[in-house]
């Protein structure tokens, strides 16, 4: 009875609070939606244009809702559009990027894991200094290394080759992967390593049997980071390779520069999307772990 009576009473304060709550929510979601739109509208425009006919784009302008739907632009962009005189589309460059990004990502991540393992669990005299030096690489913009790399790749005979770019990206990426893994491994209790040493396990066995099985969260973060970073990288690609050897980022720019006639906005849009798909896919597959891995500190 008393409870019913209490429920019937009008609580002015609570009502005011819930009204305030509603308007605060409304404002927050409004602002968030606005900013999300700023990010999403350009993507939407590109997606639409990749399916529109060139004439329709010319007629109605770049930004407008599609009235036609066709896949020709995607096919052209993939296999037959002419870039700098070669009419093979983006296909070759796409695979260049893939064969560059996958090995570079795997190698740099593995090296980062091993480095991180050594720098967190097998410290030696000067290991902190070494780590600080490696950290400098995180803050160093890539263009600083452009000249030295040109020299090194020239000496190694790896100019204008995917292998050269793999080497560049592995080395350039190591400071990041090492930083990620080392900080994550610091959260793994040293006692585990000590117990394993008493159990007779050596450096590699501890790495394989104890460290690596604990590593998936940070390895996923590192792989996403490296994959998107290397895939989207432009500067090294455009400087060290040309023509058929170029990764897709460099080819995209070549595509826009090669237009002698009217610009094929439909094909460009499709090409850009082809170039953007792999990192998007990677993020969709691993994004959940990416956010979790970045926020998760220690292993309980």
């Amino acid at each position, binding site marked *: 009875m008393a409870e019913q009576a209490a429920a019937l009473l009008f609580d002015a304060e609570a009502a005011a609070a819930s009204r305030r709550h509603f308007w605060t929510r409304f404002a927050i979601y409004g602002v968030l939606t606005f900013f999300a739109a700023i990010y999403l509208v350009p993507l939407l425009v590109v997606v639409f244009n990749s399916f529109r006919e060139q004439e329709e784009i010319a007629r109605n302008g770049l930004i407008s809702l599609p009235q036609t739907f066709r896949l020709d632009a995607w096919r052209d962009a993939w296999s037959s559009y002419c870039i700098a005189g070669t009419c093979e589309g983006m296909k070759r460059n796409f695979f260049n990027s893939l064969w560059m990004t996958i090995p570079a990502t795997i190698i740099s991540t593995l090296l980062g894991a091993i480095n991180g393992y050594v720098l967190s669990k097998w410290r030696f005299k000067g290991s902190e200094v070494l780590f600080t030096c490696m950290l400098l690489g995180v803050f160093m913009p890539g263009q600083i290394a452009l000249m030295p790399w040109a020299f090194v790749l020239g000496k190694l005979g790896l100019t204008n080759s995917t292998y050269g770019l793999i080497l560049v990206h592995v080395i350039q990426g190591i400071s990041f992967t090492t930083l990620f893994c080392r900080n994550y491994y610091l959260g793994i209790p040293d*006692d585990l390593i*000590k*117990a*394993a040493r*008493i159990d007779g396990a050596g450096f590699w066995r501890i790495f394989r049997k*104890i460290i690596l099985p604990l590593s998936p969260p940070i390895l996923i973060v590192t792989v996403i980071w490296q994959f998107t970073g290397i895939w989207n990288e432009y500067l090294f690609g455009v400087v060290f390779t040309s023509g058929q050897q170029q990764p897709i980022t460099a080819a995209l720019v070549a595509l826009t520069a090669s237009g002698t006639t009217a610009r094929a906005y439909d094909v460009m849009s499709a090409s850009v999307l082809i170039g953007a798909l792999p990192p998007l896919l990677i993020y969709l597959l691993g994004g959940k772990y990416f956010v979790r891995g970045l926020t998760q500190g220690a292993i*309980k």
Partner: protein
Amino acid sequence: MTSRTFSALTIRNVHKSFGAVGVLKGIDLEAQPGEFIALVGPSGCGKSTLLAMIAGLESISSGEIWIGDRLVNSVPPKDRDIAMVFQSYALYPTMTVRENITFGMESRGVPKAEQADAVKRVAALLQIEPLLNRKPGQLSGGQRQRVAMGRALVRDPKLFLFDEPLSNLDAKLRVDMRTEIKKLHNRVGKTTVYVTHDQVEAMTLASRIAVMHQGSVQQFDAAQTIYSRPANMFVAGFMGSPAMNFIPAELSDGEGRAAVTIRTVNGGSAALPLAQALPTRAPKNVVLGVRPEHIYRFSDDLRQRKPGLAAVQAPVDLVEPTGAETLAVLRFGDLEVTGRFDPDTAPRVGETMTLGIDMARACLFDPATQSLL
């Protein structure tokens, strides 16, 4: 030399320093085969470092560590034939209990059939058979503790090392596991070195205790000796709870019988006759060490039974009943002295009671050197 029997563990003049900081300053210890040794001391005394050095996880700055008849100074941990239980248990989180237990054998290439037998034996011993396929994250604290011990036991090593294995357990479980470790040691009979900061654990488990402080062993002796004849004021104060009372006193040799004079309330003083002969070359000012349980409510028939009893009057400041016993804070001059009484004879607050101090059990210390006289 051939007839010489080796101790299970011998530590000779071991030093350890990290840079300029000396952590261990000349440690000498030995353990007989099958013995249970406790290293006890406050945090930072170097006990865990010493254990890590026995295990081979820390290098030795100077000195020698022998396990059995083998000098192990530069032997890596895996070849020392030791097993260790860590405070954090250090169970491999991605492996099942079974894999945790077999990891060491796996590393050493023990055949699978032998591994299975060993797991069966240890799991039965520790009653962890139902847990074998679980991951450490699915176990309670006590279960993890058992698995950690199982991982050590499966090795059948020369030496067991325990690094504060019970400090992560709650109070009740800790007492249970303590009993269990003792039973286990009685059954397995392996030489054990056990590090703890808990003096009760050390007293209950160990046959001999090494009390450490500031990087050196203060006393290494049988548990009862450590308790009743502590080598110095640090050991006396560290072992026992509530701690031993330290009462400044003056030696007097009048009337043919040595006595100590202590201050009582209201500027008075009392002479307490010593039970033993006065040590030679004792300073005039000494510190009288009395354990709380050696203070009684004075009565004539108690004196009949305890001839060393000396009477002194003191007011009662505070009474703390714990059930089994009652602690009371007594005032000696401006000093607070804790007494431990049977609830039947417990004092009341405000009472000025006549106390009997068992001088036969009391210790005298030199205030300058802090050591036992």
